[in-house]
């Protein structure tokens, strides 16, 4: 359906910036090299044939020890979903980042909406977004330590801000 988007991408970026691309379950996706992240996004937004002007979603996947995954794949994938209101087609972009240098360039200057989504991804996964205007935690409180949606964060590890004196329940 949106094969045109991938074709445009592959036609524009011939220097190996597009690591992979394909269609699974009817979704077009492309894996972008980290240094071309902004360029690819801007191109998709501005190119008349793709015109991905609507920012749908940005999140992150932690592939720590995922069964069936490639051993050398990066641990984190920043995943962006884009939509073109005029052409009514979508695309999903991946950008890998490894644990030791978990950062990706920010998309805030391409789509204003990316701001909070990137804050969330940073909050829950600890992936930094270079150039983000105000990279604070958004869902968790500032005192929270760690990044809870990482696979190695225990589900029930609470970090209370306040507790009542034990035993004072009637």
């Amino acid at each position: 359906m949106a094969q045109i988007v991938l074709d445009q991408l592959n036609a524009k970026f011939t220097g190996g910036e597009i690591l992979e691309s394909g269609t699974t379950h009817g979704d077009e996706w492309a894996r972008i090299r980290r240094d071309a992240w902004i360029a690819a996004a801007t191109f998709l937004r501005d190119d008349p044939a793709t015109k991905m002007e609507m920012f749908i979603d940005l999140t992150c996947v932690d592939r720590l020890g995922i069964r069936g995954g490639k051993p050398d794949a990066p641990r984190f994938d920043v995943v962006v979903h884009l939509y073109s209101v005029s052409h009514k087609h979508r695309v999903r972009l991946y950008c890998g980042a490894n644990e030791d240098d978990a950062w990706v360039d920010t998309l805030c200057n391409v789509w204003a909406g990316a701001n909070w989504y990137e804050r969330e991804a940073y909050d829950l996964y600890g992936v930094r977004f270079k150039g983000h205007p105000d990279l604070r935690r958004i869902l968790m409180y500032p005192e929270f330590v760690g990044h809870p949606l990482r696979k190695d964060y225990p589900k029930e590890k609470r970090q209370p801000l306040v507790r009542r004196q034990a035993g004072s329940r009637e």
Partner: protein
Amino acid sequence: MGALDWVTTKLTDATNWARKFSLFQYPFVTACCGMEFMSVAAPKYDIARFGAEFPRFSPRQADLLIIVGTITERQGPALRRIYDQMCEPKWVVAFGVCASTGGFYQNYSTMPGADQVVPVDVYIPGCPPRPEQVLDGLILLQERIQRNEGHNQVAIAVEAAERKGIDVPLARIRAIGQKAETP
């Protein structure tokens, strides 16, 4: 002095009777249960029939804190502050399982029951509880009030304990929403 006892007990009964039918509630509405709370306030299950129709959105004017919905760790200090701002005598109702025990949210962010932070008089289970259940819980509370029970007695005891030097939960509340260290 029997006579005096008689007078005082009757006096307490009278005040309690007055209190239980003029509960000024502070609905601390956070989540799904709020929808059912609306239904309770709405015409069909008219909570006004029990003298608790008047929500006061200022803790200073309320004497019944209804905790409606999930309390997260981030919400905790705010809830505790609201509770501390209410004047004695005060009562607390946990509306729904999330406020009672955390419900099926057992994870890093949700608090396993609002009673981790404030003492609770009546727990209303259900996810969310049906309005009938809520009214039932309210009646339970009214009976407690008539019997002169309720955690406000406990709160006084806790204050006494605190005066004895047991550490004060309030003191452990940090200012909410400080700026995070930007990376």
